[in-house]
């Protein structure tokens, strides 16, 4: 069977479905695929959804400077946001700082960005990572940039909602502090996910396959959405197949 879509397009389609019904989606640093998913979801929402792409001039309506994203989040005006992590563990703790000791980390990553704040305050945080290996999906992160869950008495209106990788889609149970495998992507297997994940997760006896993107979305992903995201991520856009005329 030949696939009519790439893995990137599958991921964009999954993100678009996860975002359905959101009023305002924000997309942070180094996030071209989440950005594309959000812009496609906006396109399909018929104008109901707002999207703010950080680093963009055109798809960013903030007029109050860098604080505005965070002020909006604290007020509950952002429904969905994306975070990643050099390491992610089974309790959805994320590490964007580095490994091999702190502060003199042997491997140093950029830093925590806004994660330590937004993870607490955006209801639907989608963890997205393009690498699904035991190097990334670890039993315990070396440094908690942002914790997946909080003890009672800590103000928390947001947190992990889903985790998407090139292998599968997980949900997160905030009461049980555990991921649940919701679907395995076409061409991938449960065994592959088990082999590449360093922590336990829940799953049904028979895990369904991730649905393909709607055929009508592919043209948008390669056309209008690609053009929109190219403003912020030109090198990413150059790698995506453009729509054939």
């Amino acid at each position: 069977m030949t696939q009519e879509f790439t893995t990137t397009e599958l991921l964009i389609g999954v993100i678009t479905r996860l975002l359905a019904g959101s009023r305002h989606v924000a997309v942070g640093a180094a996030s071209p695929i989440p950005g594309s998913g959000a812009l496609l979801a906006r396109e399909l929402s018929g104008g109901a959804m707002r999207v703010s792409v950080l680093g963009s001039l055109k798809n960013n309506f903030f007029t109050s400077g860098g604080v505005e994203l965070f002020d909006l989040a604290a007020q509950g005006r952002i429904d969905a946001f994306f975070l990643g992590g050099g390491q992610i563990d089974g309790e959805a703790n994320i590490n964007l700082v580095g490994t091999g000791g702190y502060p003199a980390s042997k491997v140093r990553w950029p830093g925590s960005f806004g994660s330590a704040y937004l993870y607490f305050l955006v209801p639907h945080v989608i963890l997205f990572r393009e690498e699904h290996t035991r190097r990334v999906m670890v039993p315990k992160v070396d440094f908690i940039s942002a914790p997946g869950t909080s003890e009672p008495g800590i103000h928390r209106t947001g947190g992990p909602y889903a985790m998407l990788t090139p292998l599968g889609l997980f949900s997160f149970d905030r009461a049980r502090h555990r991921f649940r495998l919701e679907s395995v992507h076409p061409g991938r297997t449960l065994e592959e996910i088990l082999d590449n994940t360093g922590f336990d997760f829940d799953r049904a006896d028979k895990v369904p396959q991730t649905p393909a993107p709607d055929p009508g979305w592919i043209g948008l992903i390669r056309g209008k959405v690609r053009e929109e995201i190219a403003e912020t991520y030109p090198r990413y856009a150059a790698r995506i197949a453009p729509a054939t005329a």
Partner: protein
Amino acid sequence: MTGPDLTLSSLAASIPDGATLAIPPDNCGAPIAATLALIRRKARGLHLVCVPQSGLQTELLVGAGAVRTVETAAITLGEFGPAHRFADAVRSGRIRVLDATCPAIHAGLQAAEKGLPFMPLRGIIGSDLVPNRPDWKVIDNPFAPSGSGDRILALPAIAPDCALFHAPLADRHGNVFVGRKRELMLMAHASRQTFVTVEELFPGNLLDDDRAAGVIPAIYVTAVAVARHGTWPLPFLDRYPGDDAMMSRYVELSRTQEGFDRFLEELLTRQVDAA
């Protein structure tokens, strides 16, 4: 001292060694021309406050040995690749990193602009950032009903000695137009001195213009220098694109200190040629 009367070298001479220096992100007016002037004068011991993150500007200053402390939410070159000089300096312990998260840096500056000792902020408690920042305090919300135990993080005021950034326009009175990039205004409000490079001079008074809401008034501005393409090789808003080939070359060469030194020499030479 007001008005666009400074050269880049005298601007750089006004920022002393050891200063706490507030700088913007790469996509928001990172003053690379002024940064090269700081490197040229062999600035040392700077404490960078990245508002709230940085990239090439911090890489250049760290690689040139000008930095003692980096206070930041992140150091990133985005799509171009890893910030090698920063990572190397962290690994070897040559610089001290004060890891933060974006709104914590904003909150510290907001406290300073209000003359407050601290600003409370939601979230963050439970992050490993907190035990590594003894200057951050978890306190009880004094307004919570008693016994409800609402803990909240208090961030100390950040009042940098100097702010340094690039903006589109300034007038001869020392007013600086920043438009929607209001984090630059926050930096100017919070810092004791503010040094600005601009693309061009505005004929007239920016406060008499429709754009006045996006203007930092001269009361906050210590000095302005004109530096055309002052963020090159970074892009500047919608005014000019970045030099992507140069950035890719930077990431490649900066894998080693020797490669970095060669790249820096080239940048400094090209700046002299352009002057």
